[in-house]
């Protein structure tokens, strides 16, 4: 891999940028690998990268049915934060946030991680109590977090409607200054390039259609590009996880739902942070291109159609307009949906399964982008050592049998 640097940029300028090396190879699948990763989203690519980097396992292929990053990785609103309530979740997301802080250097790819802060608004007295409780819990877990009263909030975000006449008046907010946004495509491409440089094969247009087992041990997969053998397989397929689980005769506590987002026409800089509201359900930031990036809620029904209903968007934009009246005449450019894998406790499953050598990483639902590096890091550990890291041990499939759920639903509200 040729390193990206100011020098390489200048050198390539002389040849009119015609001679850049492709960011990753495009190999034919080999008949066998040590480890197969199913799903070329950010989490799968990060897993492959950390398998090679941290555990020296590089005879690995990432099998992606479409193009890498074409799933939720390339469809999300890119909010990154770690201010979760419960200890287990806070520690997992905080590990991820720490990896974000060094990621561009580590993988020599600018993922445009921008720590512009994330505000979570409180609109009722109960909201205020819940948010303050979470702020205190965060501080006890070493996660930066602060309570911002409404008068200071008005100074920090002048365009936010904090009037007491608002339909749901804003009473204050939590702020995580280390939170922010990152460039989603760059995360997929950067991990792919860095994994490829360590010998990982990135194989696109390769859909897994079956999981082969012999006596309770996984031995390979069937794909649209032929059978591939491996005795360790990590499945990271987000919204399609139940489909993959069924291929191994497993049942998962997951429902797949459409989740939508939309972006506006580009505007001059107007919002320099991320604002989220659980109560009215809207969240917004402004991209470097100037677009407002707005996330909506999930459709109530389960679905795999990568599109959602207009009435969800309607409710969402009503909330955004109430929070930011000056956005009322902004035009929206694009709108799309992704399929999110929701879990009953709004926490992921990063786990071994009853099939030996078969591992699943799923259930991130509406909020897994922020966890991309940390998820890959702990999943690589789980696959390499055949046992979870202490950070992901609580996120096992067995928790649904023991009852030890990690209930972030009420706690973190909108889980983006």
């Amino acid at each position: 891999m040729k390193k990206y640097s100011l020098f390489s940029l200048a050198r390539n300028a002389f040849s009119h940028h015609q001679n850049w090396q492709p960011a990753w190879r495009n190999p034919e699948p080999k008949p066998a690998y040590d480890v197969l990763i199913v799903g070329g989203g950010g989490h799968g690519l990060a897993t492959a990268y950390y398998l090679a980097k941290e555990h020296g396992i590089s005879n690995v292929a990432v099998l992606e049915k479409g193009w890498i990053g074409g799933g939720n990785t390339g469809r999300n609103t890119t909010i990154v934060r770690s201010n979760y309530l419960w200890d287990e979740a806070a520690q997992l997301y905080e590990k991820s946030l720490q990896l974000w802080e060094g990621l561009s250097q580590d993988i020599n790819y600018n993922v445009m991680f921008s720590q512009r802060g994330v505000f979570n608004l409180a609109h009722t007295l109960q909201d205020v109590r819940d948010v303050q409780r979470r702020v205190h819990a965060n501080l006890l877990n070493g996660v930066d977090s602060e309570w911002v009263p409404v008068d200071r909030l008005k100074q920090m975000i002048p365009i936010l409607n904090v009037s007491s006449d608002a339909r749901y008046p804003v009473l204050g907010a939590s702020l995580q200054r280390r939170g922010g946004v990152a460039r989603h495509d760059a995360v997929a491409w950067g991990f792919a390039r860095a994994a490829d440089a360590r010998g990982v094969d990135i194989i696109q247009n390769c859909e897994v259609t079956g999981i082969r087992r012999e006596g309770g041990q996984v031995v390979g997969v069937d794909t649209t590009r032929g059978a591939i053998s491996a005795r360790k397989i990590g499945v990271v397929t987000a919204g399609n996880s139940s489909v993959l689980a069924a291929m191994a005769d497993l049942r998962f506590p997951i429902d797949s739902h459409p989740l939508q987002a939309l972006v506006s026409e580009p505007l001059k800089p107007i919002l320099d942070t991320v604002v989220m509201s659980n109560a009215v359900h809207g969240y917004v930031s402004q991209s470097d291109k100037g677009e407002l990036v707005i996330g909506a809620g999930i459709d109530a029904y389960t679905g795999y159609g990568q599109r959602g209903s207009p009435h969800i968007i309607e409710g969402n934009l009503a909330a955004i307009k109430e929070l930011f009246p000056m956005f009322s005449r902004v035009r929206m450019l694009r709108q799309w949906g992704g399929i999110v894998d929701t879990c009953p406790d709004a926490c992921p499953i990063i786990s071994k399964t009853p099939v030996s050598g078969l591992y699943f990483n799923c259930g991130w639902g509406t909020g897994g982008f922020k966890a991309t590096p940390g998820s890959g890091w702990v999943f690589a550990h789980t696959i390499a050592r055949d046992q979870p890291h202490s950070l992901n041990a609580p996120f096992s499939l067995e928790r649904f049998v023991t009852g030890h759920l990690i209930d972030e639903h009420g706690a973190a509200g909108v889980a983006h």
Partner: protein
Amino acid sequence: MLQIDCPWCGPRDETEFSYGGEAHIVRPSDPDATSDEAWADYLFMRTNPRGRHAEQWCHAHGCRRWFNVVRDTVSYRIEAVYRIGGQGPGGSHDPA
């Protein structure tokens, strides 16, 4: 938005209904005698198919009655609507 044909009120907008998840899940009749695994399966595990899905809806802003729907989770097309305890397409209680 879906248009759902309530068995009692006829076709109405989806926003009048609330979604109740997978249909035909049977509560174990003797919870004390049920293993933790079987209880977890009842409580949490779902088929979540990509394709035909038998599911429950409630006409929350109408007659407030529950009923079953068979819907395709990729095209979102509704194939059949039938009452609780009634017969789904194919004559069985579990059309999926």
